[in-house]
């Protein structure tokens, strides 16, 4: 017959194994999510970039020539 102490140990062992598995699965999921988002992040920019260039466009925002605010004494040095 199991005493309270044994049950407690078994419960703890069982519980800690589950927790380990859970943490492993969680860790793996998080890592793959981070990896996926990182690779999406790193790939999205050049692809977008290159697509725009292929289409002969500047990859950033383009303002029309008439909008140029030609300042006397530019704000940048040099």
């Amino acid at each position, binding site marked *: 017959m199991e005493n309270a102490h044994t049950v407690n140990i078994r419960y703890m062992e069982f519980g800690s194994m589950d927790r380990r598995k859970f943490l492993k699965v969680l860790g793996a999921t998080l890592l793959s999510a981070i990896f996926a988002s990182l690779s999406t992040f790193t790939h999205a920019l050049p*692809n977008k970039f290159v697509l725009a260039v292929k289409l002969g466009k500047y*990859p950033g925002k383009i303002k029309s020539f008439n909008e140029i605010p030609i300042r006397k004494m530019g704000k940048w*040095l*040099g």
Partner: protein
Amino acid sequence: MKVQCELCPKHCIIASGQSGDCRIRVNVDGKLVAVTYGYPCSLHIDPIEKKPLFHFLPSSKVFSVATVGCNLHCKNCQNWEISQQSPVDVSAYKASPKQIIDISKKNKCKAIAYTYTDPAVFYEYTLDCSMEAVKKGIKNIIVSAGYFNQKPLRELCKYLDAANIDLKALSDRFYRDVCDATLKPVLDSLITIKSADVHLEITNLLLPTMNDSDKDIRNLCKWVKENLGPEVPLHFSRFYPQYRMKNLPPTSIETLKRARDIAKDLGMQYVYIGNVIGENCENTFCPRCKKELIQRHGYFVEKNVVKNGECPYCKYKIYGVWKYG
């Protein structure tokens, strides 16, 4: 297919869909494309003294052009908001070389300066604008760190009239640690520009504790004097905490004056202090008779007595371009 960019000494090997270190030269299906060609992000009219060019058509207006990106990544960059960004993040205007020339003429600018970031990375645009400008009698100026390969620089020099090159220090370690570059290509560029008969002035930004010791300043001045000549104007510029170097204090006025004194003692003929107003260190004196020839305040010329490129008192020939044409 990978491509190698041969424009600057970094020689980036770029995979398809990726850009070089400058962020703007992209491998598109095996073809190298400068994405900022025809897309300047800054267009302004500046006094030529702002470049700084003190011996080239004083008090004339210059049309300044820049695109985003740079091949150097100086931790102290003062224009980092455009130089250290990707084109994706900075808006630009669509302007062909012809439109740049037209707008310069419309604003009565005698010269176009390729500046703010580095014309090395918008080389093709600079070259095409320069060729158009020459046809219309407009002068071409570059304000650059001089980090070019020799072949493209020699090609560009055919159309250039003046250059202000930023010689950051006479130390390869400084270039590697602070600028993500190397010293030798810059020195080669300075010699190439001078020997191509392009008017040359040099700027040296003094960073406290990084390149402002007597030895640093002396070495730089000696190299300039021996390799380019004592007549090349030298601008010691004041640093203000910027970008990734906010930990340093601004350069003290004493340090700037010490640098000027060292340069003069070593025989440099025209030495100026920049980025400082009110210290009376921006005036030009005749190297022979020591009389004041040009009086400046900030970016503006208040008095200029240079006549036909000579000192009116002793007829000493003053280095520079004094007449348009």
